[in-house]
């Protein structure tokens, strides 16, 4: 029988660690056993975005979406759905939008309804190892069009007209950056893809690299043609081994098919791409530090000006673009600037991918048009707060960004609007927090990260951020004073003004924004020596109230045996032994809830 069904398994890093390879092997095994392997193609593709529900398996042409699939489920899917045509209801994923419907298609799901998967269009559809599947999706058509029928200036004009802005965080107009570099004369120019993606919790670029690596290779070649570069580099962080492997494989395939290399499409244009690995430094996501790293130097930023477009890699004119920025290029060339502008906002056209994480139901990747509100992303696409808790804040922009509160949730998301409310879009990380998060601790977490990652070159960042962290630690330990709060604010503004690069300049942002929106929490820590969210251990004490029925559940889980009490008698916690882990509170039966902290 001809191939009549495709089993598509998500093979992004999340689902791989959830067992996608084992699922693939089991599918192949069972289908062979049933004698129907010839009718079914089993394919692994990139990220579907609904990472919370992984491992994900989608059956085509039915478009049935199976979630949390285990190896033990595979036989049932093969026998019931694939052989007999009866979908396995218990494994199907439904959300609020589809729970009472039958014959549900992927695009009906509430999770996908408001998304525009333009950059992610091939993720969850094609096999990233198969260049012919990329070509089937109009792959390399844009490159062919560019090198055979367009002048470099025409390419730059299209990208300028589209209004595409850098998706790495700064939002600089891409067409303008390319035109600066094109205008500089040099014997050699370079174009680099920044795939360092250092923000904690961000994995948008990872999804593109793992799921659609050719889109980046094609875009680099197009960019190289536009600016006059014959050499491209993809700088990937070493912490993404799957992405590195797939990009490396894709580069070799593209060379094998003659799509990059010498005389591309007979145009006389040569272009080569190589991978360079990052080595675990957040600062190397900063373009001049990245350049230093490729040159073999320690990753430390340089003064700008001169900007890389005039003096970059080995002092040659260089363009550096983020993965997501590049992933838009081929489609802009094929569909035009007007198409790109047809969604999004006037100043920020197009889509943006967000990695939504934290205390939210549907964690994963979402690609939405610019201009959508935070409320829609968090509550409609994201499915709202986990366990019915109350929303407290959302952190956007990673360690460089700020917190956004309930009142600001109807702000439309774009580059300028988020800056206006004291945060920034950054590269697209979005961490949702609930009533159990301590905002002082959140600020401390981010500052801890940036202090660790600071390269040390400039004094304001190296010394200043460290001092800010020390003050925050003092506050969380219950030693803070009101003077400390003033010091924090002073330091923050000095560091922002005087640091050499964006790491230092933006490191104080989480502190500034949490002090602005959650000052009362800081004051509780400083004046009342109390952590309202119950997170900062030194400011929290656990007590057993008279609701206690003496069931002994808490004493059983206490790792330091700090709880004593007779059977059916009210138990007591010895404060001198207690390590404030909170296990007792979790163990206390929900109906009793005799343990509180204050």
């Amino acid at each position, binding site marked *: *029988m*001809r191939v009549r069904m495709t089993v598509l398994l998500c093979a992004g890093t999340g689902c791989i660690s959830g067992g996608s390879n084992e699922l693939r092997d089991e599918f192949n095994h069972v289908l062979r056993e049933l004698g129907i392997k010839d009718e079914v*193609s089993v394919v692994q593709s990139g990220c579907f975005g609904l990472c919370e529900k992984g491992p994900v398996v989608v059956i*085509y*042409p039915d478009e049935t979406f199976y979630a949390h699939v285990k190896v033990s489920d595979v036989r049932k899917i093969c026998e019931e759905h694939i*052989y*007999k045509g009866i979908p396995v209801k218990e494994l199907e994923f439904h959300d609020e939008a589809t729970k009472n419907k039958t014959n549900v298609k992927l695009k009906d799901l509430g999770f996908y309804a408001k998304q525009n998967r333009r950059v992610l269009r091939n993720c969850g559809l094609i096999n990233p190892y198969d260049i*012919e599947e990329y070509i*089937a999706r109009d792959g390399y058509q844009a490159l062919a069009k560019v090198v055979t029928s367009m002048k470099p200036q025409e390419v730059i004009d299209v990208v300028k007209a589209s209004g595409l802005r850098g998706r790495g965080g700064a939002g600089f107009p891409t067409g303008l950056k390319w035109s600066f570099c094109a205008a500089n004369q040099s014997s050699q120019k370079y174009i680099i893809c920044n795939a360092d993606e250092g923000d904690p919790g961000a994995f948008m670029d990872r999804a593109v690299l793992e799921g659609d690596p050719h889109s980046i290779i094609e875009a680099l070649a197009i960019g190289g043609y536009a600016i006059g570069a014959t050499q491209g580099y993809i700088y990937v962080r070493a912490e993404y081994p799957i992405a590195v492997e797939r990009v490396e494989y894709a580069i070799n395939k593209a060379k094998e098919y003659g799509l990059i290399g010498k005389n591309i*499409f007979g145009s006389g244009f040569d272009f080569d791409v190589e991978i360079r690995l990052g080595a675990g430094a957040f600062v190397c996501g900063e373009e001049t530090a990245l350049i230093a790293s490729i040159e073999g130097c320690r990753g430390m930023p340089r003064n700008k000006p001169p900007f890389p477009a005039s003096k970059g890699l080995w002092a040659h004119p260089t363009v550096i673009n983020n993965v997501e920025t590049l992933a838009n290029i081929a489609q802009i060339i094929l569909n035009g600037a007007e198409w790109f502008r047809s969604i999004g906002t006037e100043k920020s056209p197009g889509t943006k991918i967000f990695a939504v994480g934290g205390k939210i139901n549907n964690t994963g990747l979402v690609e939405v048009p610019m201009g959508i509100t935070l409320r829609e992303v968090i509550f409609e696409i994201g499915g709202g707060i986990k366990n019915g808790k109350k929303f407290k804040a959302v952190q956007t922009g990673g360690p460089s960004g700020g917190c956004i509160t309930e009142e600001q949730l109807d702000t439309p998301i774009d580059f300028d609007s988020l800056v206006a409310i004291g945060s920034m879009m950054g590269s697209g990380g979005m961490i949702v927090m609930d009533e159990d998060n301590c905002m002082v601790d959140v600020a401390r977490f981010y500052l801890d990260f940036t202090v660790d990652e600071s390269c040390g070159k400039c004094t304001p960042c190296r010394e200043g951020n460290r001092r800010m962290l020390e003050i925050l630690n003092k506050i969380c330990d219950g030693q803070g004073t009101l003077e400390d709060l003033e010091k924090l604010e002073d330091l923050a503004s000095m560091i922002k003004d005087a640091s050499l690069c964006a790491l230092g300049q933006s490191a104080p942002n989480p502190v500034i924004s949490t002090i602005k929106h959650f000052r009362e929490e800081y004051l509780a820590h400083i004046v009342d020596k109390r952590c309202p969210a119950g997170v900062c251990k030194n400011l929290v004490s656990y007590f057993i109230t008279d609701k206690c029925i003496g069931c002994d559940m808490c004493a059983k889980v206490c790792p330091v045996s700090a709880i004593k009490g007779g059977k059916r008698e009210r138990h007591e916690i010895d404060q001198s032994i207690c390590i404030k882990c909170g296990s007792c509170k979790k163990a206390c039966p929900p109906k009793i809830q005799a343990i509180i902290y204050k």
Partner: protein
Amino acid sequence: MTLDELNKIKERGIEKIHLRLEKNPSCKIYVATGYSGLAQGSRQILEAMLDEAFNLGLNNILITQGPSTTFEGYDPVVEVYDINDNKVVYGKVTTDAARKIVSYSIAGKVLEEYVIDDKKVNQ
């Protein structure tokens, strides 16, 4: 690599991934499987139809399994939906009839002899 060669690879590639692409097929054919369908040879019907569609070089058609129907005793049953979602149900389909149904359906015609409906069944 020339543009022509690229386009040839594209055609080849589309063959490979066509099941995953979003389409608006001009007609949708569901071969009822489930226990009674399988017992009466629904898989052979499915196979014949897929083969016929391939031979005719049809791109814009969906042929797949469908749920069991209420027409007990009439398996193999095939349901065909046209572009406006009008449904025709065929019963006791043979492999030859199945092949004819493919070419008839794509042309908007109905293979009368094999049509079954509530009226016919309850006669």
